[in-house]
């Protein structure tokens, strides 16, 4: 029957579909689960599975300045200091250094001063750092030497590297002891003009001699463009090598926050051999660069760097091993965070980070046990989290049964809705302009925003300082009295009527200019796109409509948006700041006049310039935490509330979930070397994965049967056509 040819082929398609699913099923009968996204061979090793959403742009510690990059290089590079894993408030402790350095103050002629000298007499501060001997780098070809003692892979020829794709492909790998000179070399690298370090400008103002070094290097590059620069030939007056294990950094004036910088990856050691090795043009042509293949002394090394698919960290065989901290709070003890006290870290052998660009697959794979930890998107929130009567969060029953646990913490960040104070309408410092901003601040209901978009994860902003940072005040003393009233033990937002009255005082009765009658329109600039952004803009429009102001959202691409912020063309924008270090200076400087976006491209995107505020800031900045500093901060906060450079904002609360097989987790927003502390129970994980992911096959069979049943009448019809219809005379 020729007519059934298509039907047969369709049927055979179905058969092959069933066969295919059978194949999957029988594949699943072995050890490998058919939906396991990882190769079988690594099932029972101590491997952590995690994900990353965006390809890290830089892994060179002098250039990298993003938290997603720190997730990798924080495990590889070791700056002299780091944050204690458990202690809160965050405290610094030595990592490769022997102690946290105390500054020595110097006067203008370089003579030491006593530590209680007045700030105006101090011209320089000097930090001396001692490095522990015996720390060794990860194996790397840059350290390999010929029998004569010369670097083995320095003047490579094309035929030498024909088979080479990564540094690990070189036959000879070696290591070397960490010395103070490596730290000095790294600081000098900030002056390299073609490195484009994001903090070069900032450090140049701070570290003595760095700007001079930079101009010297630039001069050389212009005059002798073909010469390869060896930083050893260029002195840096502010950074001195004292001996094999000690170096000193001299900075201008007093800057107590400097020691926090010593805990950031910027100040990691960089051996000169390594930079010489990577500077070879032949290697750069093969994409073998320092930005791609880091070399450090930390607990892990980057085994595989394929950001198109996955990044793999594995244990550094030369790592000295650090003991797990044995001090912590009583809470930490109860949470089992001290069970490993004193044991040698790291506990995990490898960490595999897979690329996931969308949030939905990450969440589903976490539920299947293929990721060990996960954040919670606002849309899967109700599935994961429930609130008890006391409003404390816990995971839902379904997740608790899987052994999933929750950790929450308030991030040291502030996300804010800023005004541009240079704008003729919403900017300015006159009383009516202040009132306009106050009215908007009341109208934009941040509590509702947090409830709708963040499921209550966050606290509305009352001052620039997030909780956990010195100067933050809780309760009635901490509320912003211009926007809130203290009512029955909670901060209650002032009524819309009050906002409308402020608007009348500001000269915009019912949202129109009191003289011209022109309706007031406020522009909100944003680079965000996607469904969440749309919902946010709809919501924001509603907030402005409450006081009859029209809001127009101007969405552009990120570049354009940044460009507008930089040139002061925005009216309102949403921006956030994550703390570099736990100090109020790091937040208040966002409103410091000399730090304005216009014209200095500083971080003060609101271009808030108030002489009084700046004066207070300059006093506050250099003080140690204490009553005097608190008083200054309070004065600054009063000015901030009165002038309203930011219409509102919040401090996000981070919820992370983790499975029962991972332990020693404590959220930290400043520590970067967190991987080595964590512990994994691979047997438990494997057992639960097997239990959670049994393939279900019967729906496919059902579907196949239904399709066949549906086809039967068709077959009949076909038969009838072919035989009964008048023109169907068979040959």
């Amino acid at each position, binding site marked *: 029957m020729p007519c059934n040819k298509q039907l047969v082929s369709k049927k055979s398609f179905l058969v092959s579909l069933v066969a295919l699913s059978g194949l999957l099923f029988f594949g699943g009968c072995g050890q490998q689960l058919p939906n396991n996204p990882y190769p079988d061979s690594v099932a029972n090793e101590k491997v952590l599975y995690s994900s990353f959403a965006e390809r890290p742009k830089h892994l060179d510690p002098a250039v990298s300045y993003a938290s997603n990059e720190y997730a990798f290089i924080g495990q590889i590079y070791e700056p002299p200091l780091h944050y204690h894993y458990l202690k809160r408030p965050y405290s610094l402790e030595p990592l490769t250094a022997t102690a946290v350095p105390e500054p020595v103050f110097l006067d203008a002629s370089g003579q030491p001063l006593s530590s209680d000298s007045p700030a105006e007499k101090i011209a320089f501060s000097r930090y001396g750092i001692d490095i522990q001997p015996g720390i060794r780098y990860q194996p790397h070809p840059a350290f390999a030497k010929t029998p004569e003692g010369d670097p083995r892979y320095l003047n490579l020829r094309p035929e030498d590297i024909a088979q080479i794709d990564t540094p690990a492909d070189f036959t000879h790998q070696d290591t070397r002891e960490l010395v103070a000179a490596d730290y000095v070399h790294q600081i000098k690298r900030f002056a390299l003009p073609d490195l484009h370090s994001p903090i070069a400008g900032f450090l140049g103002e701070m570290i003595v001699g760095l700007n001079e070094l930079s101009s010297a290097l630039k001069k050389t590059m212009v005059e002798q463009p073909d010469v390869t620069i060896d930083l050893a030939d260029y002195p840096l007056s502010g950074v001195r090598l004292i001996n094999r294990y000690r170096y000193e950094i001299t900075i201008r004036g007093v800057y107590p926050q400097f020691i926090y910088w010593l805990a950031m990856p910027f100040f990691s050691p960089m051996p000169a051999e390594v930079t010489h090795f990577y500077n070879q043009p032949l290697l750069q042509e093969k994409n073998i660069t320092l930005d791609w293949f880091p070399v450090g002394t930390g607990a892990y090394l980057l085994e595989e760097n394929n950001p198109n698919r996955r990044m793999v960290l594995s244990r550094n065989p030369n790592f000295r091993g650090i003991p797990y901290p044995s001090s912590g709070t009583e809470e930490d003890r109860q949470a089992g965070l001290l069970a490993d006290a004193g044991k040698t870290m790291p506990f995990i052998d490898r960490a595999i980070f897979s690329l996931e660009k969308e949030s939905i697959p990450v969440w589903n794979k976490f539920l299947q046990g293929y990721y060990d930890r996960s954040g919670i998107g606002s*849309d899967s*929130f109700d599935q994961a989290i429930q609130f008890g009567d006391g409003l404390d969060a816990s995971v839902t029953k379904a997740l608790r049964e899987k052994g999933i646990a929750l950790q929450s913490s308030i991030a040291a960040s502030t996300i804010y809705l800023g005004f541009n104070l240079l704008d003729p309408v919403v900017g300015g410092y006159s009383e009516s302009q202040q009132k306009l901003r106050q009215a908007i601040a009341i109208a934009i209901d941040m509590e509702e925003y947090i*409830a709708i978009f963040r*499921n209550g994860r966050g606290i509305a902003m009352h001052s620039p300082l997030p909780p956990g940072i010195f100067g933050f005040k809780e309760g009635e003393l901490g509320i912003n009295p211009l926007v809130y009233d203290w009512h029955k033990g909670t901060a209650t937002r002032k009524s819309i009527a009050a906002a409308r009255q402020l608007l009348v005082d500001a000269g915009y009765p019912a949202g129109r200019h009191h003289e011209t009658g022109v309706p007031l329109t406020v522009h909100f600039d944003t680079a965000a*796109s*996607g*469904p969440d952004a749309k919902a946010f803009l709809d*919501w924001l429009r509603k907030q402005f409509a409450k006081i009859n102001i*029209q809001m127009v959202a101007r969405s*552009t691409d990120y570049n354009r948006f940044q460009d507008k912020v930089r040139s002061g063309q925005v009216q309102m924008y949403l921006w956030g700041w994550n703390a570099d270090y736990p100090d109020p200076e790091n937040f208040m400087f966002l409103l410091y006049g000399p730090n304005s976006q216009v014209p200095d491209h500083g971080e003060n995107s609101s271009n808030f310039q108030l002489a009084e505020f700046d004066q207070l800031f300059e006093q506050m900045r250099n003080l140690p935490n204490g009553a005097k500093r608190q008083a200054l901060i309070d004065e600054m906060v009063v000015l901030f509330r009165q002038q309203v450079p930011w219409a509102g904002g919040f401090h996000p609360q981070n919820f992370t979930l983790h499975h029962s097989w991972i332990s020693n987790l404590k959220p930290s927003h400043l520590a970067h070397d967190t991987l080595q502390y964590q512990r994994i129970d691979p047997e438990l994980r494997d057992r639960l994965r097997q239990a959670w992911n049994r393939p279900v096959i019967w729906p496919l069979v059902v579907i196949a049967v239904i399709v066949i049943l549906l086809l039967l009448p068709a077959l009949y019809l076909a038969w009838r056509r072919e035989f009964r219809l008048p023109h169907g005379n068979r040959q």
Partner: protein
Amino acid sequence: MISGQLALLISDYLIWSLTLIGGATLLLGLRNRLQRERWRMILSRPPAMAAFILLLVYLLIALLDSTHFRPLEIRQTGDPATSSKQYGTTEISLLDLLLNRIRLTDERSYSAPLALYGYSKEQVVTTTGNRRDYPRLKYGGAHVTDPANRNRDLLTRGSRGFGIALLILLPVFLLYRLMVRASRLSENNPRIAWAAAFATLAGLVLIGAVGYQLAGPYHLLGTDKVGQDVLYLGLKSIRTGMLIGVLTLLVMLPFALILGTAAGYFGGRIDDAVQYLYTTLSSIPGVLLIAAAVLSVNLYLDQNLTEVASLQQRADLRLLLLTAILGLTGWIGLCRLLRAESLKLRELDYVTAARAFGVADVRILIRHLLPNLGHLVLITVVIDFSGLVLAEAVLSYVGVGVDPSMISWGNMINSARLELAREPLVWWSLATAFALMFTLVLCANLFADAVRDALDPRLRGRQ
């Protein structure tokens, strides 16, 4: 009585003039016997008749929504002497006015269809203190004092709507009987499918009446993330969808038709030039081309229209430019098809014969080629029409779709991406957008099928 000042947007003018021109052509055409025959043939098919009526309803909604004005409002300053009348700050459309009962009833966040409570727990302040619970909605079912009575209330309102629908339908039914009798008496063949028309109408009236009874006091189709009524959003999207489909096709058709047939028929230099043009354009991956064009257009808007334009005007301009860009990049597919088909047609005997007799090229094109291409154009147009409505969602994903403030199916579907991953699932936005879009696309398809059969010279011979 609400008075206001007419404030038509550019797209309003376009859609109105298109409708008027289209309607006039149609009515004038009906004076021609052949045209009348064709229409009779189309409308004799029940599915085509139903589709035709539904398409008219969509068009009506789009037209209602394309009549923007600024409502009059009294400016209160407390002192009667300075109080004055002036027009509102935002343009609203006639449709907005009709839908006031669901336009102005925004909740805080998600709520399910016909729900009394919000969809996710919030902090609720009660007499005993703060608790996390499902909050009672501000508008949805606010008149229901006892939540247990909701179903009874729904039933009462539903049946009232049903009754009203019957009352409306009674005279329509009589009219229908008259029509049927009239068509039986006339000699015309085939008969117009009045039964299908009546059934469609009855369905629409029923849905409308019941919907009207329920949609004010409740959120008939739930609310979205920021508490807007989904039914309102769905209805407002009709205009956006129709505009994107119709205006884009309007831009792209002349390009495709003229260039495609010319290239295929004349060949040689013209063919080379056309091929160069569309190969160059289509070599650039579509999304990239559209993205780059939309981004630069937005840049232009930002630089030149900061102060003048209101929210709607801005969104409207963006929409127009988007359709222009889609049209300028979208003609290639059809053009290629037409060229290939013309390439084939010009070798046919009657065309070569006509050429041999010295018939002018333009005449051959119009008389011999175009009629044989009509069906191809129509099919592509219908497929493109629905594809364009869908393409909007993809463009939104890349971030270059219609203005985010604009209500559209694409924006609703794009939000549904997150809503589908929610637990419990939020399905009503997607379902609403899908149902409305599906109806439009299906109607366009069914109607086009009938039109194709009526247009195709070979098929007509069969009847």
